[in-house]
């Protein structure tokens, strides 16, 4: 029974397209996150939501728009994809902000 699940696992698309990544957690946590791991393996926070409310919005281009329909879901929509968006995107959830439970990642490749 997966705690944090994200789909799709792999996403290959052309520049300029719009794509979404979905995330769901069944842990009952109040806070959900999106992290990005780039080619240099830096794992950086992009957004955090607490009970559907945006808490953290790092310096991410506004082509990235998170949406949280309820506290168990946090989706990431990306408009006008660029080559530099290629990365692994991890969804996570937490109750205390310290111990994060991560999904298995979505590898996005923009061609």
């Amino acid at each position, binding site marked *: 029974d997966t705690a944090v699940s994200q789909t799709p696992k792999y996403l290959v698309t052309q520049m300029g397209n719009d794509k979404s990544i979905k995330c769901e957690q069944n842990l009952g946590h109040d806070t959900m996150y999106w992290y990005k791991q780039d080619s240099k393996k*830096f794992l950086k926070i992009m957004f955090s939501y607490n009970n559907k409310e945006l*808490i953290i919005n790092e310096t991410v281009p506004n082509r990235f728009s998170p949406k949280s329909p309820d506290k168990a879901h946090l989706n990431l929509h990306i408009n006008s994809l660029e080559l530099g968006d290629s990365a692994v995107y991890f969804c*996570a959830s937490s109750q205390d*902000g*310290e111990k*994060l439970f*991560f*999904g*298995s990642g979505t590898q996005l490749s923009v061609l």
Partner: protein
Amino acid sequence: DQQVKQNSPSLSVQEGRISILNCDYTNSMFDYFLWYKKYPAEGPTFLISISSIKDKNEDGRFTVFLNKSAKHLSLHIVPSQPGDSAVYFCAALMEYNTDKLIFGTGTRLQVFP
């Protein structure tokens, strides 16, 4: 500006020996530190943590040491097992910003028989 640094990208250790993974940080406002472990094609999983009021925390084979004056922490795994082979990320938090974990770039540990 990288506030959490893991200067060793990889480490190879024989099974049964001690593995020591190191982490340095630059921001003195960090007051909580964590280690995460990551297997290929999986997300990181929480391993062990330490508060800045302590200098050591132990959990089974895993011990984390914190040297605040040196802004340095280390993870000791003893004895190392082949199943410990993974990428280990150090992470740090500031009390006033508990939603923002800052990660290092990871150290790949390989434990060989």
